[in-house]
């Protein structure tokens, strides 16, 4: 179980997750969504929700000094999603190259926990392979082990 994470609310269909980042910049609502692509494939998208307009933004840098907790919270939704969507595959990628690298570092950090239940793969130059630390993957695929 991922311990250090924010409390989450989830939609009844287990596709939309919301939580609030807490830090020096205040309370920043976050949204994680699993979007159906085709067949067994889902896309993981994640970003900030503007507290005033409600608009979602996956490019904003909120700098709330809680990146690790935020990414651990997003990672925890993967467990919940797969508990409810058996046999599916999740595609994930950062909204920018630097964000994809950040996700890669955190996935590497959580690899032991993730690989207890899941198979994590990375994509590099159009080739899919089992995730290895220190490889600069452009996107990730996750499925239940």
């Amino acid at each position, binding site marked *: 179980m991922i311990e250090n994470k924010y409390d989450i609310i989830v939609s009844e269909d287990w596709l939309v997750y919301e939580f609030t980042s807490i830090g020096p910049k205040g309370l920043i609502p976050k949204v994680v969504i699993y979007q159906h692509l085709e067949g067994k494939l889902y896309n993981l998208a994640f970003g900030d929700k503007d507290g005033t307009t409600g608009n979602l933004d996956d490019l904003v840098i909120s700098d709330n000094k809680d990146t690790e907790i935020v990414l651990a919270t997003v990672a925890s939704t993967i467990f919940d999603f797969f508990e409810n969507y058996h046999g599916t595959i999740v595609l994930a990628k950062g909204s920018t190259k630097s964000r994809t690298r950040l996700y890669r570092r955190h996935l590497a950090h959580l690899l032991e926990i993730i690989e207890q239940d899941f198979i994590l793969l990375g994509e590099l130059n159009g080739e899919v392979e089992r995730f290895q630390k220190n490889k600069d993957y452009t996107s990730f695929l996750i*499925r239940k082990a």
Partner: protein
Amino acid sequence: MLKETKSSGKIKIDPSLSNKYKGTTLFKDKFDWAVNHIKDRDIEKEIMEALKKERITKP
């Protein structure tokens, strides 16, 4: 409703959340990228081949 999940501990189910974003494509750029990324590909087969390759090459 509060549910205890195996993975993340307590999680609250909010029935209003399912309808909140209904009919809108959230994070549209990312979604469009994903649709395009998997187009004409058999991702499941690619995963199986990657795992098979790993089994063959792993010492």
